């Protein structure tokens, strides 16, 4: 079963509205507006067990239930599709946006109806040029067909949906930074509480969801929570887009049941490592997840199981580290990214990440000192959850702290050898 990607044409084109409709597209909107109350939809999504696909795995229906309801609740309300996809190693929302934009629009219409929003926004990173063109076309088609706009299907409920094209910076994907960006401010985060569901865009109730999360909604509404739960193999419901990149034989993206093992993704779908290379470890779900070792390949790729193994499912797109690539160099690359993308609001993040990147750079070039490895561990600990405004810094700590544990010998060899022991790898 591939509800999310099954209809995406192999040609690389977007699924046209006519084909989407012929396959049952927009029927969930008809069903919802015709037969269901908003709170019934929230209940169905809760019962489905859907957890957010943007990285944190928060219960989607539960999040919607925090939006104040009733005639006195603040208005207007907003729904935002987070299409900023900028987590290094992550390339899953791109396929959903380019391949089936109407599926996202239908999910957004349903989510907006459930929380009784009158405004919906797609927050898209600039680099996704093809997605921008296809979304614009799809929004116009959906409006012409009466799925968007005033008094949808005679229900009395109206939805204005707009595309916002951003201009870079990882922080814009953090949900409160995103809200500031949409309001025309710097994308620094907001203190929570209040949570966006109570006070978000322009102080009004706002729900932010990842693209993949929203793309699941039409299927859940059309086919019910029991069906959705049956798609998952273990504790988590539904399917998931899993990816693999790095020096695997066939890098790619696959829609698979929630809970497949990392081994099935890396060795099965991605064909294992390239000729002559061995897997040393992997980031299970993007740059801000802890490394797992090659010995942990049988971990089920679902939220709680990956957490139990010491990492996070994150975005579900695996980055493989092979035995000819320097782990210190890889961590240097990751921390340089985080240091650069820090918005500068909190001291441990602004100063600590730059310091960590400098130490890693010295180590990688053979100028590290023995005590640097300890300092790196201390820096990672200082970025733990709770010491900063947003999750960028704790996310940055994850690959660092786990690399120090898993590849500690490599760090120490850089010091004792006075050079990178992998430095001849480029020649290979």
């Amino acid at each position, binding site marked *: 079963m591939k509800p999310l990607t099954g209809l995406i044409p192999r040609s690389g084109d977007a699924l046209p509205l006519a084909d989407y409709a012929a396959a049952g597209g927009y029927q969930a909107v008809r069903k919802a507006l015709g037969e269901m109350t908003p709170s019934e939809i929230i209940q169905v999504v809760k019962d489905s067990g859907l957890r957010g696909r943007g990285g944190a795995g928060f219960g989607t229906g539960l999040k919607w239930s925090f939006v104040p309801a009733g005639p006195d609740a603040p208005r207007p309300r907003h729904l935002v599709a987070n299409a900023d*996809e*900028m*987590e*290094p*190693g*992550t*390339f899953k*929302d*791109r396929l959903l946006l380019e391949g089936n934009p109407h599926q996202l629009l239908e999910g957004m219409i349903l989510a907006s109806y459930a929380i009784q929003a009158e405004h919906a926004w797609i927050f898209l*990173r*600039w*680099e*996704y*040029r*093809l997605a921008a063109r296809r979304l614009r076309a799809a929004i116009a088609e959906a409006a012409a067909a009466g799925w968007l706009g005033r008094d949808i299907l005679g229900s009395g409920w109206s939805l204005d949906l707009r595309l*916002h*094209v*951003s*201009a*870079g*910076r*990882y922080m814009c994907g953090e949900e409160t930074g995103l809200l500031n*960006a*949409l*309001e*025309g*401010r*710097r*994308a620094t985060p907001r203190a929570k509480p209040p949570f966006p569901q109570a006070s978000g*865009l*322009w102080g009004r109730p706002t729900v932010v969801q990842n693209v993949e999360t929203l793309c699941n909604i039409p299927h859940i509404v059309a086919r019910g929570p029991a069906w959705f739960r049956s798609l998952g193999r273990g504790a988590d419901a539904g399917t998931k887009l899993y*990816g*693999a*990149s*790095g*020096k695997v034989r066939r*890098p*790619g*993206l696959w829609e698979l049941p929630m809970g497949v093992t990392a081994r099935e993704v890396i060795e099965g779908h991605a064909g294992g490592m390239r000729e002559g290379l061995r897997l040393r470890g992997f*980031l299970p779900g993007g*740059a801000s997840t802890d490394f797992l070792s090659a010995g942990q390949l049988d971990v089920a790729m679902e939220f709680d199981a990956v957490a139990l193994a010491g990492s996070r499912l994150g975005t579900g*797109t695996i*980055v493989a*580290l*092979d035995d000819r*690539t320097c782990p210190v*160099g*890889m961590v240097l*690359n*990751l921390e340089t*990214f985080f240091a*650069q*993308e820090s918005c500068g609001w909190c001291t441990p993040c602004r100063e600590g990440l730059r310091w960590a990147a400098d130490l890693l750079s010295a180590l990688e070039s053979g100028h590290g000192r023995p005590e640097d490895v300890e300092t790196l561990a201390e820096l990672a600990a200082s970025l733990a959850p709770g010491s900063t405004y947003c999750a960028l810094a704790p996310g940055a700590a994850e690959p660092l702290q786990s690399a120090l544990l898993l590849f500690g010998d490599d760090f120490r060899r850089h010091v004792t050898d006075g050079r990178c022991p992998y430095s001849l790898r*480029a020649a290979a």
Partner: protein
Amino acid sequence: MSLTKEERQAIAQEAARMPSPRAACLDALRLVQERRGHVPDDALREVASILGMSEAELDAVATFYNLIFRRPVGRHVVLVCESVSCWIMGCERLREALSRASGAPRGGTSPDGRFTLLPIQCLGDCDHAPALMVDEDLHREATPEGAASILARYP
């Protein structure tokens, strides 16, 4: 005045569609940049006044974004992904080749003004690493050997 009448109208119109005028500021900056390559000071000042923002406020937003250029760039902007999957797949050699072929240093513009070469974060194309963009086009699985022929398409 550095904005045309038509540009001022387009910005004011967009601002009127938004719950607050400043929400149109990124679109306005981009409109300026699309026609001039970057956002010059005088244009920034005018956009700020149309949107009811101070110049400093608008500049704070403009400089937050790495894809809003406050200084002139070349005719073509080359964005080379330097994030983790592209790094594993050899983006450093690719970037050096692009730099040689274009004459632009990392973060700079070629002497002939044709190319600006900028590092960029993950382009969301990691299964086709290393990846780069030239203007609005994505180039996947690029090789150092192929760098010159990619650039040749952008006169």
